[in-house]
């Protein structure tokens, strides 16, 4: 924290929605198809073509609004944002200006430095994306309009954040929410979650906001943090050198770690917003809002509380398991099949996440399903295998996709619980280690661990360790 200046940050996030079709036409939104293969007269902006609103986009907008405590507008308006660019086929973008779908929301964020804090959400509006320009080697450019007209939500925060940490905490939480809601795939690199940051500084105690600059091209949480910190330092330097911060848009270059001025306020576009006459005002009834509210999944905050209160998990476990919707779903399916939440939590956080991390996989790609994992845990419970063997079984299942029972059967991993069989091994171990037996009997009881280890080793881990312990004690005290 700077001793002389307070940092003020507001964020604008573009959330690309995962609807199957585009916002104003029926074309597919699938990523990575051949250029201009997913286009029609509407998204190509051909003369005479007209937009028709995709209802799913409205529902996704309502979901985002409800999840961030916004008021959903009973009547909202689409507006045209006019500017020329080759990736913008109509020469205007259909967006919302006055009367967006959501307003006056908030999210509580948490940072280590400052604890919990409420960040206001000014508005959320729906709009269409532009296409993409591909720059060719011969200095010409090609236009790919597959992305044109794909749906976006723009989430605009109040200038409530005071540090890059808070900005990141806000973004991570918003990211978590939209992914949880299932309205965005959350992929920052592919541009599904894009952030612009408005940054200004002011002397502590000053009420008016300082002049802000808008930072663009921030496509990872790390770059956002870097860009904000660079910008704060730059503005402090400007003021310290007797200069004035000018309102401008700056482009962050992550390779160089610096931002460069893209255009000043004077060069800014006059977008000539006006209501789009091709689209009627959007009416959203209370009923519709309630219908969407009922479809909302449980959000992470609520899940964390429930995991602790109902399942008795420690706060740490609850936080880790609820962080990702798919992970939480995996965990909850597992608990349904094997109702010992803490043991489930240990396995998910330990074996499952460990193996995923090692293989660089997502939870949805985990080869050991909750059903398969529950199969292992049940065999520990009924003493078929020990906890140690169970980890080997887990690895086997990961490789082969077979069930725990199949693996145990095929590999002969069944735990030995037959007293006679264990007695034979115990006798062998005691006979092979007369020195240690003497030490134990002379009062060195710590030697018990050694004997158990030897029994397990001799049995390749298959002996029930509790029974081995009991038998050893009995034999050694004879």
């Amino acid at each position, binding site marked *: 924290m700077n001793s002389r200046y307070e940092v003020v940050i507001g964020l604008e996030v573009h959330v690309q929605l995962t609807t199957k079709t585009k916002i104003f036409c029926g074309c597919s939104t699938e990523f990575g198809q051949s250029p201009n293969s997913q286009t029609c007269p509407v998204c190509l902006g051909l003369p005479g073509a007209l937009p028709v609103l995709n209802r799913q986009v409205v529902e996704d907008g309502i979901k985002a609004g409800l999840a961030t405590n916004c008021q959903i507008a009973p009547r909202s308006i689409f507006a045209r944002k*006019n500017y020329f660019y080759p990736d913008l086929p109509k020469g205007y973008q259909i967006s919302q200006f006055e009367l967006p779908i959501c307003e006056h929301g908030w999210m509580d964020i948490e940072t280590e430095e400052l604890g919990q804090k409420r960040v206001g959400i000014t508005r959320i509006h729906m709009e269409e994306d532009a296409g993409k320009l591909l720059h060719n080697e011969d200095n010409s450019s090609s236009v790919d309009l597959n992305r044109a007209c794909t749906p976006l939500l723009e989430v605009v925060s109040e200038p409530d954040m005071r540090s890059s940490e808070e900005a990141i905490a806000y973004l991570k939480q918003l990211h978590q929410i939209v992914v949880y809601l299932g309205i965005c795939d959350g992929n920052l690199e592919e541009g599904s979650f894009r952030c612009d940051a408005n940054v200004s500084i002011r002397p502590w105690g000053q009420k008016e906001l300082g002049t802000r600059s808008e930072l663009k091209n921030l496509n990872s949480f790390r770059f956002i943090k870097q860009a904000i910190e660079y910008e704060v330092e730059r503005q402090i330097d400007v003021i310290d050198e007797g200069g004035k911060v000018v309102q401008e848009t700056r482009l962050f270059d992550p390779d160089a770690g610096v931002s460069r001025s893209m255009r000043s306020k004077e060069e800014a576009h006059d977008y000539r917003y006006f209501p789009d006459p091709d689209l009627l005002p959007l009416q959203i009834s209370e009923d519709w809002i309630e219908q969407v509210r009922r479809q909302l999944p449980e959000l992470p905050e609520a899940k964390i509380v429930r995991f602790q209160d109902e399942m008795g998990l420690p706060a740490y476990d609850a936080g880790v398991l609820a962080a990702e919707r798919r992970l939480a779903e995996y965990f909850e399916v597992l608990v349904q099949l094997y109702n010992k939440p803490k043991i489930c939590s240990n396995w998910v956080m330990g074996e499952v996440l460990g193996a995923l991390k090692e293989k660089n996989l997502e939870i949805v790609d985990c080869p050991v399903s909750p059903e398969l994992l529950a199969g292992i845990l049940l065999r520990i419970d009924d003493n078929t295998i020990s906890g140690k063997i169970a980890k080997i079984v887990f690895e086997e299942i990961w490789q082969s996709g077979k069930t725990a029972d199949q693996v145990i059967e095929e590999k002969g991993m069944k735990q030995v619980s037959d007293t006679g069989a264990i007695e034979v091994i115990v006798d062998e171990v005691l006979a092979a280690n007369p020195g240690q037996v003497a030490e134990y009997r002379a009062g060195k009881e710590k030697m018990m661990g050694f004997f158990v280890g030897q029994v397990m080793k001799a049995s390749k881990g298959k002996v029930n360790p509790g029974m081995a312990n009991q038998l050893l004690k009995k034999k050694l005290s004879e």
Partner: protein
Amino acid sequence: MKFHDLTIQEMRQKLISGELTSVELTQACLERIKATDDRLNAFITVCEEEALTAAAAADQQLAAGNAMLLTGIPVAVKDIFNTLDVRTTCGSKILDNYISPYDATAIVKLREQGAIIVGKLNMDEFAMGSSNENSAAGAVHNPWDTERVPGGSSGGSAAAVAAGQVVAALGTDTGGSVRQPASHCGVVGLKPTYGRVSRYGVVAFASSLDQVGPLAGNVEDCALMLGVVAGYDPADSTSVDCPVPDYLENLKEGVAGKKIGLPKEYFIDGLDSDIKQAVAAAIETYHQLGAEIVEVSLPHTDYSVASYYLIAMAEASSNLARFDGVRFGIRQDAGEGLIGMYQQTRTAGFGDEVKRRIMLGTYALSSGYYDAYYLKAQKVRTLIRQDFHDVFEQVDLLLTPVAPTPAFKIGAMVNNPLQMYLSDIFTIPTNLAGTCAMSLPCGFSGEGLPIGLQLIGKPFAEAEMLQAAYAFEQATDWNKRVPEL
């Protein structure tokens, strides 16, 4: 063969009875176009081959007994409708080479009813004009006096119907662009209620005002054409999902007992005396037909031209942004970069009137001017709409002149755009209000030029308006006169 004094219904009967084939009819129509269009310039594109192929197919349908409402009947459409395989220029150089990959909804509907589209009609560039002088394809000439304008912007549509080149045509009406040329050319032209006909595939001029409308030689044909193109279209969010009545069914109902209002603001001093007389005679006709005539007021009429041009130009400035040379149309590129390409393309591609309107509209939407111009105009529009709402509580229909003067000489107003804009005063308010209106012949000036009468109906009450028009047409014979060509 002479066919151009037949109505749609007469053609239809002859086609069904086998007295006439669609190929014969279409050939005759193409010959008539060839014989007259060097003097009129009503067509931008004549699609002879496509039309004859379609006519042959229509003859098969007729032979099989599958006659739809327009099977085998040649019609033409304003060059603002997107048509598959035939170029759609909008009267503009910028679209000189443009072929649409799809048909407008109105075209689809015409084809579904078996119509033969013989060509694309001349128009003011992007429907911007009241005289059809603003066309890259050259001015259209009025069949009644080829030194005069046919009116605009659907000037080609009106001239073609008046000259018997086609029996009916489609135009579009943003501020009078169907009714005013219909009036100047002595044909029937109808602007439906906003939302009655799909705008999908109609190149937009001013989206909140544009509406597709038919032009024909008589009220019945006009009603038939309206029935073909009207109806809800999911592809146009502004089209209205309300049932389309059979406009022909009760056409002969008459006007006895109907209340017809004369808005006093439309009977102004500057009105041409021939028009004043013709309209007065029409009022008398309605009186004799049993209608009750009352004077009413539309108090905000004076503000309609100003607010119309602000709204229309603002919308146009945005609608025409897509003509940027990037994806279609004529691109001009002297290698001076992207901005240079935009400037050269649009400078060379658009005519003066289009450029004027884009600039004015851009200005009206600009930051700092928006409230004073665009927003103010929208507020006035609300008042004008309220005027009509109030007046339709008192009367069933309104009766007014269509234009303050008959057709003027080509070139007479070229240097006075404001005067030209003011000539739309009687037609503009209905576009702002969104209600329906039509023009029908009600007399001739001393110089032998047609004069039109405007009927304005309640929203979605086209049927009632057509009944009144039909009654008038039956009581008079103005529509029977044809120009000598």
